[in-house]
């Protein structure tokens, strides 16, 4: 029950090569189908994202060098020569393949450490393969465990909680002040790419009340339309300040557009309700002395960048705990895998012994015509009991005791010892 993994990612391959080896959903289905049709893999799953393309599989029992064949298939499928891929591929088997998948699901192998998107991508890839019947007991168990690992790492460590982008840091700060953002209001001043990132994160975090201003009305209309907000004319900027709880500015202006005087009047008009100002403009859009006004929290891009750097370090510090969870789950998976392998071998052993017993009895009892039918049955039963006691029970014990299995090194040795036919299992 070997597991193989062949793949490449942003650590090992350039973006150009990754583009050539990426799988579209149709290609993933085709590749999985071909791998099974050609008898290379019994179970297969393709995981393809912008940063990685990986083939997970369980080779057939009688396949020699399943991993090597998968590698050749990968090259030929994408019309590449093996040499082109050679330096960029990683090849893992068994526990290493399992550990790799768990690290991927946990976000430890991502370009942005701890990012959450990969877990959803792993889930989607697994669900598609499961629906198509491309996976089997091994990959099912492995990917279910991977999803569990991803969930545990994100809930039991802080690997994915602290924001590591400026836009997300601003949104998380808003949550530190206001709590859940659903009932709160955001005013976006400037409709460029930076503002869009902030708006995207705000919407992801549940904000429902959004207004957008921009000097160029069309851009404001476009941004508001895409995210369900309202447009406020640029000239109404000052009047609009008493409405939001959060203001994000990102405009090109040599002078601040929000001065202390403007904001003092605004705070009076809004009865001093707390206001978070996120100034992403360079030069700054908000006069720095505004920070002294009561109940105003002002952050500029440098402040957010510093938070992001601190958070990146904090994420790195969480790696050992995440690896601890992964170690635990890898052991659990391997324990399960060994148990399944043992059960299969034991079933084959039982079958083999039963067949041998039948052949033995037929041979030996043929010359004992003086025995009655009842005697023959008793003799057969005694022989079976003997086999159970001497061979099968000890073998069953081994299935339940990992320490014994470790001593045996490889349960599969029983197969060779008793010359068990693989095809029958």
């Amino acid at each position: 029950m070997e597991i193989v993994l062949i793949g490449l990612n942003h650590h090992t391959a350039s973006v150009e090569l990754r583009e050539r080896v990426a799988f579209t959903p149709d290609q993933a289905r085709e590749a999985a189908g071909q791998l099974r049709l050609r008898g290379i893999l019994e179970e297969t799953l393709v995981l393809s994202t912008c940063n990685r393309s990986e083939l997970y599989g369980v080779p057939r029992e009688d396949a020699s060098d399943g991993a090597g064949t998968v590698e050749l298939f990968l090259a030929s499928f994408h019309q590449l020569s093996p040499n082109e891929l050679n330096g960029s591929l990683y090849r893992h088997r068994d526990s290493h393949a399992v550990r790799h998948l768990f690290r991927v699901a946990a976000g430890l192998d991502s370009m942005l450490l701890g990012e959450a998107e990969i877990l959803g991508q792993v889930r989607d890839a697994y669900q598609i393969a499961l629906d198509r019947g491309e996976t089997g007991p091994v990959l099912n168990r492995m990917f279910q465990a991977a999803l569990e690992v991803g969930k545990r790492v994100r809930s039991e460590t802080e690997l994915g909680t602290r924001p590591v982008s400026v836009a997300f840091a601003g949104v998380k700060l808003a949550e530190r002040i206001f709590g859940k953002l659903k009932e709160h209001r955001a005013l976006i001043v400037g409709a460029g790419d930076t503002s869009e990132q902030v708006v995207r994160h705000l919407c992801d975090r549940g904000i429902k009340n959004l207004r957008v201003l921009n000097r160029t009305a069309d851009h404001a209309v476009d941004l508001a339309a895409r995210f369900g907000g309202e447009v406020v004319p640029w000239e109404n900027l000052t009047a609009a300040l008493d409405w939001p709880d959060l203001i994000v500015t990102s405009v090109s202006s040599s002078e601040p557009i929000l001065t202390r005087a403007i904001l003092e009047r605004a705070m009076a008009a809004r009865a001093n309700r707390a206001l978070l100002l996120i100034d992403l403009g360079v030069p700054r859009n908000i006069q720095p002395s505004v920070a002294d006004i009561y109940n105003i929290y002002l952050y500029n891009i440098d402040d957010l960048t510093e938070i992001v750097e601190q958070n990146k370090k904090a994420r790195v510090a969480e790696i050992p705990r995440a690896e601890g969870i992964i170690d635990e789950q890898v052991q659990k998976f391997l324990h399960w895998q060994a148990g399944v392998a043992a059960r299969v071998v034991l079933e084959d052993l039982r079958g083999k012994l039963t067949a041998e017993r039948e052949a033995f009895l037929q041979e030996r009892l043929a010359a004992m015509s003086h025995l009655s039918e009842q005697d023959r049955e008793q003799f057969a039963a005694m022989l079976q009991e003997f086999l159970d006691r001497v061979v099968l029970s000890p073998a069953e014990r081994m299935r339940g005791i990992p320490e014994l299995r470790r001593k045996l090194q490889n349960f599969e040795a029983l197969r060779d010892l008793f010359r068990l036919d693989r095809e029958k299992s």
Partner: protein
Amino acid sequence: MTNPYVVATLVFYVASLALYIWNLREPSRAAGIGATVCLVGALILHYFALLARSRMIHAVPYDDLFGSLSLFAWLLAATYLCLEAMHRRRAVGPFVLPIVLVVFLLAHLAEARPVKAPPAQGPLFAFHVTLNILAYSAFAISFVLSIIFLIQNRRLRGHKLGVVGWRFPALDVLERMTRSSVLIGCASLAVGMVAGLIWAHRLEGQYWDGDPKVIVTVLILLIYIGYTLLARTAAWRGARASALCIFNFMFVIFSYSIVNRYLSHFHRYF
């Protein structure tokens, strides 16, 4: 402090505090759950400690200052636990538990002695005392929440949120929790005070015999009602309201200590 329940309670409170602190510094599901479980255990054991104290002094546990302190610690811990269950946040635990622990220790350092036959008995009296102590617990919670608010506010304004700062409840949430605690405190205090006045009338034929405790209690009620009204106004909402809440709690401490010890003739436990 020879009562085994007291010792066991102390152990569980200390364990709970240690786990809350650990969970705040290095969030861990096991530490968080462990902290809550230890706190629940401490509350159960504390209840039995109060019961044992009652039996020893042949009176309700709050018949003396130390008993009432113990009940205060119990109600404070129980109120916090409800808050934690409601908001699913453990970050406030490391700030509440030390108060519980200190008050509990103070309460049980003094040996429980049977008190002189007090007139203080009956369900109305029990109602009066329990509600008043509940009020003080609620005010204590609001005091802790206000301190956390001020710390967080300072960190946020100073751009120094730090590692732990990300784990506290949001400022808005802290403010709402504080106002809720104060409301509970005011309601309990008002009803508890009325119960006390009615009980005093039944006992002595007059509602008030000039005991300064009543005046101070009314003052406390007024200043917390004042807080409730001011906390939503433009001039006071935010850090100023929190500072006011902290200031108000000094009156609670004054009432519980100086007034009970030196000024009140009926609420004096010595």
